[in-house]
């Protein structure tokens, strides 16, 4: 079956045959293959259809630069779209399918686009689907998406595990070609902590495929020894299958490592991929270079491939990409591919655009009888699912036409348009690239961060230079860090010599033909599209890129950017550096979202905070709700109760008997120091200087812009010690706020603050029978209204510890908040529950808590939303006239003092039945023309257990003068309009008698 596999050679394991399925058909490859090499070994070139014209496309490269080999991958009931066959290693159980074709890759109805291509010029979508506007979402977009889409993402959760790792090192070396390995060796031997990263599954880069020797060893043997030596060193981390894909500031690089997919029998705990965050003191970029294609008519047919990639398939995988190859080149490097094929018994023909070449390798090729056609170009190709022949022609002296044309049969074309240094990471790091007119490429120039580019990425195209740069850079950079002064000598190397390339790379069309000459294969951008864009006035390369989509596919133009750039500069008659280059952005290659997110999925998405009483809640059918990071009981479900039924029962029991609520999550801040009272007096809007010891006070904090920031009670425990409570949501922000003023604005104040939220477990015991219950828990203490009045504070002995008793109330009932150290929380809670039985105690959750506070008219987070001032919340009485405080100066703003400002009120539906959705808008009349002027909005809603009807809080314009008015609460989303009456925000016990009882 594997008709294109050589008899021997390559680095595959020929004794380990592996089957895989492509488009329903079973094929075989070997361990060590990629999907691409295995497909080619079976003579399969047609992989998919192109994005726009649905033209048949095949593999053009052997690495991440491949533009066409995108498939849908299936394995173990998992599917992944848009994976590249050149990057997937062959393991058992792989199934792949072509994308972007229907009904099949061989017969694709959308290929009609190819015949209609003159209707699909650059900017086609922009121009065509403009009108009518309403058609876009319903008609155009769905059709375009279906026709132009790529693979299909799975809707199931990703079953794999991904990990993150942080690492620091002295020197990170990216790429394990000759310069990378030699720099890692030199740095490691000089004592530096080195990380060497290689994206492929084998170390060595070009040394695996080039015919070279280093220190009397073949290139690949030298690699093996060097890697073995590096692996034996404790100061070296060496990783293959690891792509460094982003270079961020402060020398932070990110890399993903493929840990699992290549394993036949991975362990259950093996992560699929690992994301590395690497902070390196120095970075050596030895990222190599990528061969450019030549541009000619119908240059996109399956079987047309980069010359170096064809050589890689042969040398690494033992695969012949074709048996009748044409080598089409404008430089000397492709001759090596020709010689390799000749050595395999084939008869390659070289088409060279140059007049001649004096390079040694050209003479070598001539000597072994390879046919070379100098001054020739490929004018056209034929073959639908695979290239069948090329039309070659002798280029005229201006190289804008052919003097004669002839057809040559072939089954593959290997092209080389010279080499593009891989400067992506250097550019991401801030390196201002320079244009080198000798090699027609952009090269690294001025480093902004601590990075050094070496080897062919730096334009050093010979092995000798790469090794020299590698060893020298590795030593110099490491020595600045380790100061060990242990240099490594540079081995002698031998390689073939190459001469100058031809600057000519874009072939003229034969006669007056309109064949497509593709520049960007993945996005189907042809020479004519770029010509059109320039003709239509697009000048900036960034605009041309976006208009034509050149280089915007998932391969990010690795093979097409420079050709596109040169074309634009030729058309504009400018030199390339004037045109500039588009921005290189991370990621260099596609990264799965799973890798980026790592373990932070599902329950690990964020930290979970639980109170010490959490287990008890769980055992008593609590249904939990997220409150920031906290899990709080929302209600306790009795039998088949709904949320509404349970919360009503719980709230009513507080009003009638006694309830207990876990309030551990409230923020608690301990404030100590002799200036504590003065500090609080500045932070809160109301007075705190003269708060007596053993008393709590409700306080309001503003931001400097005058908006209400938070509220809570603060208790004076002793002369210089206060206990502050904050809302659950703002706990962290309030602490930061306090630290800001203490450390920055008033460092002279002798005050220290620390969060004690997790040190204290809190239970709020509320209801008319709460005093009776407390006298059971603390039988020796005086709990009379005189001894412990409203807003009073006492410390009682509880078991072997201290309980802090605050007589504060959020529910509006007689209530006590008991705090004990967290370790005693569960004990306290159980004691309250068991002693409370005779008073019909019930635990209550946040839903009942909301009900109780809403019908009492107490404001909470839904009102203190950062957009309301004290007046809006009817808290203007809390603003001291006698002292300055944070935010006071802003209260004089015109908008804050205007008549008719929004103010909090209560609203009740006139039918006393219909619940008002939170977020509803309040309007005066619904029978007016749109838009209806709105008066305000509903901030919180509940079912009043006191009156057994719905009740809501609303913040409405001129609220204070609207009590008694009949208005409407409308919710267009729910299509409802409810007649309501405005009442006082204090629906229950407006005089506040109960809390003082």
């Amino acid at each position, binding site marked *: 079956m594997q008709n294109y596999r050589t008899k021997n050679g390559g680095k595959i394991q020929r004794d380990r045959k592996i089957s895989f399925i492509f488009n329903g058909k079973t094929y075989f490859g070997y361990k060590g293959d990629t999907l691409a090499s295995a497909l080619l070994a079976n003579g399969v070139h047609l992989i998919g259809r192109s994005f726009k014209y649905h033209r048949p496309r095949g593999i053009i490269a052997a690495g991440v630069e491949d533009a066409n080999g995108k498939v849908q991958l299936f394995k173990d009931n998992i599917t992944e779209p848009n994976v590249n066959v050149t990057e997937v290693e062959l393991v058992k159980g792989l199934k792949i399918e072509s994308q972007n074709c229907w009904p099949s890759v061989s017969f694709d109805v959308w290929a009609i686009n190819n015949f209609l291509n003159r209707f699909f010029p650059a900017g086609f979508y922009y121009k065509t689907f403009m009108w009518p506007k309403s058609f876009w979402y319903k008609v155009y977009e769905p059709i375009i998406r279906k026709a132009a889409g790529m693979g299909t993402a799975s809707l199931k959760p990703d079953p794999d595990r991904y990990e993150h790792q942080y690492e620091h090192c002295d020197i990170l070396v990216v790429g394990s070609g000759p310069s990378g390995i030699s720099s890692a060796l030199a740095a490691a031997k000089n004592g530096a902590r080195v990380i060497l990263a290689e994206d492929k599954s084998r170390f060595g880069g070009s040394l695996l495929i080039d015919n070279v020797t280093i220190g009397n060893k073949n290139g690949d043997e030298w690699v093996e020894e060097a890697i073995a030596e590096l692996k034996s060193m404790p100061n070296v981390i060496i990783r293959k299958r690891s792509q460094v894909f982003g270079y961020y*500031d402060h020398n932070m690089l990110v890399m993903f490592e493929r840990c699992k997919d290549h394993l036949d029998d991975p362990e259950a705990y093996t992560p699929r991929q690992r994301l590395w965050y690497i*902070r390196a003191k120095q970075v050596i970029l030895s990222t190599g270079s990528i061969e450019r294609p030549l541009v000619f008519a119908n240059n996109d047919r399956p079987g047309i491939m980069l010359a170096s990639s064809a050589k890689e398939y042969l040398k690494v995988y033992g695969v012949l990409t074709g048996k009748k190859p044409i080598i089409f080149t404008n430089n000397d490097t492709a001759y090596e591919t020709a010689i390799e094929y000749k050595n395999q018994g084939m008869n390659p023909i070289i088409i060279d655009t140059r007049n001649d070449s004096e390079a040694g390798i050209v003479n070598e090729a001539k000597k072994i009888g390879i046919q070379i056609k100098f001054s020739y170009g490929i004018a056209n190709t034929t073959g639908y699912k695979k290239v069948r022949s090329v039309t070659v022609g002798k280029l005229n002296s201006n190289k804008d036409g052919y003097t004669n044309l002839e057809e040559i049969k072939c089954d593959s074309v290997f092209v080389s348009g010279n080499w593009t240094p891989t400067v992506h990471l250097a550019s991401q790091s801030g390196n201002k690239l320079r244009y080198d007119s000798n090699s027609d490429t952009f090269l690294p120039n001025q480093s902004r961060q601590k990075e050094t580019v070496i080897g062919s990425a730096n334009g050093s195209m010979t092995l000798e230079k790469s090794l020299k740069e590698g060893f020298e850079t590795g030593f110099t950079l490491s020595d600045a860090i380790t100061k060990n002064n242990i240099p490594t000598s540079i081995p002698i190397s031998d390689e073939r010599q190459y001469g100058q390339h031809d600057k000519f790379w874009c072939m003229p069309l034969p006669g007056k033909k309109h064949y497509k000459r593709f520049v960007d294969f993945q996005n189907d951008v042809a020479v004519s599209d770029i010509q059109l864009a320039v003709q239509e006035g697009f000048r900036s390369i960034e605009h041309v890129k976006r208009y034509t989509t050149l280089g915007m596919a998932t391969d990010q133009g690795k093979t097409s950017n420079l050709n596109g750039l040169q074309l634009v500069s030729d058309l504009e008659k400018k030199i390339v550096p004037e045109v500039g280059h588009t921005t290189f952005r991370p990621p260099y290659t596609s990264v799965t979202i799973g890798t980026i997110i790592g373990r932070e999925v599902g329950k690990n998405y*964020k930290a979970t905070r639980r109170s010490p009483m959490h287990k008890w809640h769980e055992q008593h059918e609590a249904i939990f709700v997220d409150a920031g990071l906290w899990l709080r009981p929302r209600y306790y479900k009795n039998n088949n109760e709904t949320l509404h039924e349970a919360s009503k029962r719980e709230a009513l029991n507080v009003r009638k008997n006694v309830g207990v609520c876990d309030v551990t999550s409230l923020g608690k801040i301990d404030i100590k120091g002799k200036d504590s009272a003065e500090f609080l007096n500045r932070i809160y809007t109301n007075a705190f200087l003269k708060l007596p010891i053993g008393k709590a006070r409700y306080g309001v904090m503003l931001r*400097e812009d005058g908006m209400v920031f938070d509220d809570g009670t603060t208790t004076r425990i002793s002369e210089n010690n206060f206990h502050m409570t904050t809302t659950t949501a703002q706990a962290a922000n309030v602490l930061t706020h306090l630290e*800001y003023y203490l450390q920055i604005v008033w*460092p002279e104040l002798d005050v220290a603050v620390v969060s004690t939220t997790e040190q204290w477990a809190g239970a709020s015991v509320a209801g008319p029978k709460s005093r009776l219950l407390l006298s059971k828990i603390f039988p020796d203490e005086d709990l009379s209204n005189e001894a412990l009045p409203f807003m009073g504070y006492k410390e009682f002995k509880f078991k072997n510890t201290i309980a802090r008793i605050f007589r504060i109330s959020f529910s509006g009932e007689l209530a006590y908040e008991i705090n004990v150290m967290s370790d005693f929380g569960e004990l306290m809670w159980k004691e309250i529950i068991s002693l409370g039985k005779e008073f019909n105690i019930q635990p209550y959750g946040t839903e009942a808590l909301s009900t109780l506070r809403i019908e009492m008219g107490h404001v909470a987070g839904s009102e203190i939303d950062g957009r309301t001032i004290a007046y809006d919340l009817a808290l203007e009485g809390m603003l001291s006239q006698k002292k300055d405080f944070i935010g006071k100066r802003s209260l004089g703003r015109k908008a804050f003092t205007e008549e008719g400002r929004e103010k909090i009120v209560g609203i009740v539906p006139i039918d006393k039945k219909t619940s008002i959705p939170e977020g509803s808008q309040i309007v005066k009349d619904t029978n007016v023309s749109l838009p209806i002027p709105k008066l305000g909005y509903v901030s919180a809603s509940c079912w009043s257990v006191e009156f057994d009807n719905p009740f809501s809080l609303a913040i409405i314009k001129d609220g204070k003068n609207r009590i008694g008015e009949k208005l409407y609460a409308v919710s267009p989303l729910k299509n409802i309009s409810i007649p309501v009456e405005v009442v006082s925000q204090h629906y229950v016990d407006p005089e506040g008698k109960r809390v003082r009882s």
Partner: protein
Amino acid sequence: MKKALEQKLGLVDMLEIKCPYCGDRSQNEFSYGGDATVKRPELNSEVNDLEWDSFVYYRDNPRGKHLELWHHISGCRQWFKVHRNTATHEIIQTLEMQEDL
């Protein structure tokens, strides 16, 4: 929560900041606190509207060197100053609050 996801996807925690008390730490331990040169007007002082608005709202947005506040929120909880180049992210110096450039 949204911020956490944005940080992951944007991989923005790239700076290495030298806390004057704890040493070099990764950016994800810190939170940004704005312009460090802004001085809050004294309490109980007469402040005209422009002065007050300048303190509360108006900020320069320099491209280049900027003295800013950072808070070592997941560390020692100290506020301190960072002299940073906003264009290059280079951190020139970090200072304790009482120190000046």
